[in-house]
């Protein structure tokens, strides 16, 4: 208990005004951080010898639609291998400007995790080198893990993609034509 209290105090001391709140939830240490200068905060968390949170476990987000303001929270799980201590960072993100700084310069593994959050929640990561959808396809409309996305919503049909330089079977081209004809102007 004293160990983790000192951990939260150390984080508070190093990050100062960036910390909105520190709390303990079910035995986990949680820090709520301001999203301004987020990468710098994480650089301190990673590189300060007293903190030494050198491993990023996970990045995800939660949508508190009509429950909380600001609407989104991006959640980071980090831990220190040397001290064997976990820490959870929550970063509130408003709906009208849903973007946070990317952590790819610090942990390259953040790339896939941030792409997933972008894909499913539509939260942008500033300076991400390659922010594309990862689990869903490019033509997908909307962000399915937002709470205002109905669970039974169906997506529009997508015409077959032609990729430059690949062999295209004429039969599939006819299929595409048929699809275009049946959908009419919707395509």
């Amino acid at each position, binding site marked *: 208990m004293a160990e983790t209290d000192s951990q939260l105090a150390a984080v508070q001391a190093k990050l100062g005004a960036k910390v909105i709140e520190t709390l303990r939830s079910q035995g*986990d240490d949680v820090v709520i951080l301001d999203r301004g200068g987020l990468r710098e905060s994480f650089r301190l968390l990673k590189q300060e010898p007293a903190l030494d949170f050198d491993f990023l476990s996970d990045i995800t987000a*939660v949508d508190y639609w009509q429950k909380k303001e600001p609407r989104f929270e991006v959640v980071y799980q980090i831990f220190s291998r040397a001290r064997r201590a976990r820490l959870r960072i929550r970063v509130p993100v408003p709906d009208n400007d849903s973007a946070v700084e990317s952590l790819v310069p610090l942990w*390259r593994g953040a*790339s896939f995790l941030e792409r997933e959050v972008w894909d499913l929640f539509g939260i942008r990561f500033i300076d991400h080198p390659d922010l594309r959808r990862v689990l869903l396809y490019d033509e997908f409309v909307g962000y399915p893990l937002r709470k205002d996305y109905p669970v039974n919503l169906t997506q529009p049909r997508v015409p077959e993609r032609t990729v430059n330089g690949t062999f295209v079977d004429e039969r599939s081209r006819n299929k595409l034509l048929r699809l275009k004809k049946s959908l009419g102007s919707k395509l």
Partner: protein
Amino acid sequence: MKAESKELPTEIMELQMGPSHPATHGTIKFNLKLEGEKVLDCDVEVGFLHRGFDKSCEQVTWTQVIPYTDRLNYASSLINNVGYALAVEKLIGAETPPRCQYIEVIVSELARIYDHLTCCGMASSELGAITAGFYMIEAREMITRIVEGLTGARLTVTYVRIGGVKHDLPHDFAENVLSTFKTIRKLLDDCDRLLSRNRIFIDRLSNVGVMSQETALSYCLTGPILRATGVNYDVRKAFPYLIYDQLDFEVPLGSRGDNYDRFVCRIREIDQSMKIVEQALAQLPVGPVWIDDPRFVLPEKEKVYGSIEGLMHHFKIIMEGIHVPPGETYFAVEGGNGELGFYIVSDGGGRPYRLRVRPPCFIAMGAFHEMIKGYMVADIVPTFGMVNMIGGECDR
């Protein structure tokens, strides 16, 4: 002489491998940039098996999530069950009785053996060592039979519950497991003789897919891929859960971070897992397998059919689901492929508000291009095999 050393003009070729390539078990697409046979760049496309695990879990009660977790990494579904149940128990603040914890350790390790046998068996048969592959699949089949005898299902087990396990071990379980381990050890010895001095096998694996410690840590890798680089991180040792701190086992480490080290790490982990199961079976205490808390546990059938209170209690738990207090938590267990974490947010209702899985395979696929850059097209298959990507978990 000069004309001979002149390089032939080469053109960078783009090749799409997948999404249903016969040698990649799992639907995944590699967009390759090749110079001759050398891989210059590899863009991994995942998501072909995406079925909205997170969104589906938000629609059902806490207990109904358990069958969904089976379908994450179906090679180690018992570990997923255990991980999810432990995460919810952490949020509730409940601790299961010792016998339940021992059983959960035993089934987790059985699932780990199953997972590693699948991975190593498939990888060796893809490299032409079909016999060794069949031996490992035979060993795996024996584990499946034990799991079937215990849970009634071969893959999608749904055995662990929040606050306990579905039912106690069958009376001949220990005997079965111990005799099976004897056969598995013999089979693994045979595989060892077939593979460990096999020139073709070693040449195809060693110094291929090399990853340094720094790169592996930067890519957030866990599990056998990270341990093959020599980083000693195993959730069972670093953040012990259940009764792992009372058991005696080692964490096998590699040194070079290539495919051969990954293979050896997995094979040695099978040994350690068998050791853990034997210890746990020897120490297995007697007692209940459920927590004594009517808020989370279904009443006995006699009470359900014999009294109105019991029937109401049963009905409430089935229809409304158990009530998990509001809060959030993250809990990680060591899955077959690495840290399998569950981040759960509850708003106090009968359903999860948000349920997130940290999928070790997905993160490993994010680092795949780094493993394969500079190697040959033919090296993709063994490297991909040693990552052990399971579509159900990678794409959720």
